[in-house]
């Protein structure tokens, strides 16, 4: 138990043509807490998944106690004593707490699963967090009946049940409350003393400084440095995370004219993920939404579009509205460009023309005046500089960038007054991005109010004059003018006021 040392060197992982991890390195030892840091898309999730055998690297080496290792599957990593608390929870909703915790290593008695033993052991694990959860959290409770924080606790206990020598906490505190986090950190300190190695991936800088011994920083898929926490500062770590990353050509517009009418005003917007969001967008403004992924940005846009239920006040074009269905939002000249083209934005096997006209068939009469619709479609395709064989080609024959133009084009045909963009440039090539940016600028100059969520910090910095940074379902920071810098953006994403 005393000597546990796991090192990852020069790990590379590509998905299709996209490099998620270009040079990942990590050194983990018994009795230390190693924090893994990085901005969005820096490769920290990929690196931690390599440790747990969920993802197998294209190249690179893993060394366990001096011997080369290769984890072909999660089971293999588990046998080596590695277990993880995953960010996207790995619990099975219809099984009980006990069944989930002991899945794949159920205590057996005479070859049969012993429910009694399973219950007892689950209870003693639950006792670690005694008094910090609701009474209905028992070994026999179904996961689907638990609150998010309780599921997170179960997830932690599940990882612990494997009696690991290395435990990976991937955003394990995301849905815990203050006292639960305190208790978890007490436990982490105990585990450390008992010689366990701990890797923690966290977006909360404050937690890293509370509990970690050292930090390993990733940037653009590369490990760029390792620091001893006692000898570093938040500032130094943030700088490591961003250094030299901001390469996009800056062409930022001045702040919007305050005389422009307010297109959208939101007060106290709440959903299951959002905890009260306030914001205002004026005509001709390109307002950015930033922060680490999954802090409620997509929920905000979906709620504004009426695609998910929300409570709170919304004033659209001077009228109090609350959209309960995307149709109502569309009728009020609101458009949403979704993030996932394949699943939300396009009918992939249908023609470009059909996709473009889909939201606006209503304006071409009954029977439909197809010729006129085609004319309009051709104009938009021209305006978007789409590279295609013909309007009748199926959308799945297009490149990612051109497919995304179809998604945008279909909403532009409706001439929206408020455009909501949900990370629209994910996975499209640089050239298409540049065209997309100039399109956004044109729309803004024509007076469209745009709310633009991007997981790419450079885009926000290069296009927006004001950025709202979201953290844990709230707008934590508003950045504009001199305060709108990459450093501010990253440190606000990590939840550190500076």
């Amino acid at each position, binding site marked *: 138990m005393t000597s546990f040392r796991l090192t990852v060197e020069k790990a590379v992982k590509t998905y299709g043509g996209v490099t998620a991890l270009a040079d990942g390195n990590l050194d983990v030892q018994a009795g230390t807490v190693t924090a893994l840091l990085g901005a969005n898309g820096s490769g920290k999730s990929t690196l931690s998944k390599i440790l747990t055998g*969920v993802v197998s690297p294209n190249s690179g080496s893993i060394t366990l106690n001096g011997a080369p290792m290769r984890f072909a599957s999660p089971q293999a990593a588990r046998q080596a004593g590695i277990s993880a608390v995953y960010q996207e*929870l*790995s*619990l099975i909703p219809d099984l009980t707490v006990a069944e989930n915790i002991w*899945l794949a290593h159920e205590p057996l008695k005479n070859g*049969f699963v012993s429910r009694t033993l399973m219950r007892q052991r689950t209870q003693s694990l639950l006792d670690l967090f005694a008094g*910090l959860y*609701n009474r209905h959290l028992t070994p026999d409770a179904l996961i689907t009946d638990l609150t998010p924080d309780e599921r997170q606790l179960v997830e932690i206990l599940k990882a612990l049940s494997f009696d690991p020598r290395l435990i990976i906490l991937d955003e394990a505190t995301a849905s815990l409350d203050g*006292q*639960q986090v305190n208790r978890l950190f007490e436990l982490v300190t105990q585990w450390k003393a008992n010689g366990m190695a701990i890797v923690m991936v966290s977006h909360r800088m404050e937690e890293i400084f509370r509990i970690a011994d050292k930090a390993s920083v990733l940037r653009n898929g590369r490990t760029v440095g390792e620091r001893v926490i006692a000898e570093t500062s938040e500032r130094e770590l943030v700088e490591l995370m961003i250094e030299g990353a901001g390469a996009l050509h800056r062409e930022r517009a001045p702040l919007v004219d305050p005389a422009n009418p307010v297109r959208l005003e939101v007060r106290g917007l709440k959903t299951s993920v959002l905890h009260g969001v306030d914001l205002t967008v004026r005509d001709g403004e390109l307002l950015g939404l930033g922060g680490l992924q999954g802090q409620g940005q997509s929920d905000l846009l979906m709620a504004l579009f009426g695609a998910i239920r929300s409570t709170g006040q919304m004033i659209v074009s001077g009228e109090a509205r609350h959209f309960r269905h995307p149709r109502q939002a569309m009728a009020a000249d609101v458009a949403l460009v979704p993030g996932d083209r394949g699943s939300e934005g396009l009918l992939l096997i249908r023609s470009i023309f059909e996709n473009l006209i889909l939201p606006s068939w209503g304006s071409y009469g009954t029977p439909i005046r197809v010729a006129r619709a085609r004319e309009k479609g051709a104009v938009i395709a021209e305006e978007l500089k789409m590279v295609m064989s013909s309007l009748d080609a199926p959308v799945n024959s297009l490149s990612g960038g051109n497919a995304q133009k179809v998604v945008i084009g279909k909403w532009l045909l409706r001439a929206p007054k408020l455009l909501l963009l949900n990370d629209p440039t994910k996975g499209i090539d640089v050239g298409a991005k540049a065209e997309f940016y100039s399109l956004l600028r044109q729309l803004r100059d024509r007076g469209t109010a745009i709310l633009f969520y991007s997981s790419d910090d450079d885009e926000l910095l290069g296009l927006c004059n004001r950025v709202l940074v979201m953290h844990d379902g709230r707008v934590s920071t508003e950045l504009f003018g001199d305060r709108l810098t990459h450093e501010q953006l990253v440190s606000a994403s990590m939840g550190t006021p500076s």
Partner: protein
Amino acid sequence: MTTISAPKTRSPIGRTFSRNPFLLSLILLIIMIVINRALQDNMLEIGPLNGTLRTMMPAIFLAIGQTFVVIAGGVDLSVGSILSMTNAILAVMITQEATADQALVAILVALAAGLGAGALNGFGVTVLRLQPIVTTYATSFIFAGIALRILPEPGGRLPRDLTSFYRNPLQLSESFAIPLSLILITLLVIFWLVLSRTRFKQFLFATGGNADAAYTTGVRVSRVKFTTYLLSALFATLGALALTLGTGTGNPRAGELMTLPSVVAVVLGGTRLAGGQGNIIGSIIGVLILGLIGNIISFGDLDSWVRPLVDALIIIAALAIPGVIGLVRRLNQ
């Protein structure tokens, strides 16, 4: 208690039903028995009961096999054809003069063919990663074709002492007899209760509940899925055995219309079609309900067109229940 978020509360009755979805089907079954009894006085006497249960046995085996596949998140549309194929094999190989040894060999051959069919399905789903519906629908034509190749026309006659052993109630004492099918059903229930205490059962439910989560936890998801197709084929073969012994003959189209009812019985028994929840006891009840509905229609002097209509309504109702529950929940929010 530091957590502010209110726990979801469920009434004890709601919880009982959500944990044991087959309770609802049990109530439905009792209603069916009462109606059926009213139409057919001697229904619960040993003779008619034995006959009713015996005709349902093949469907019960199919539904049990189907349950495993559905719980793991798949579906097997080839069970009917596997039954036809193995029924044909048994009818051709067990001739009227067959010895016990020859009968045993025939059963082993049928089992091997059935398991081969299951392995083909499992291969398509877990190795080639094809959609279960597509895979098993396609293979169903292969198995149906093989059945017709082996036995082009209905025929074959099994030795009388073999079939009569299966057909007649088991005479335990002079005054007390019990339908053999009831013993088989009891054994199947015991089999399930034993299985429920194995790791395999946990893996099965975890795979259907959330295959990705199960995989990251260390469950060999592909292996579990593969096994469900083997089990489904195995039970289809046992169904064929029950059918062959019951009818004493073979029919290459015997299973043609049995696949869909097997899925309906599974859903009727409270197994979730999307996987992750279910139970073979419920499926057995599901088959009994479907069978009794057939009885009611024939004893109630209803027109023959009523039968497919009722079947269709049951399918729609069974499939709609989860959606309706979800709709009610959303409206209550």
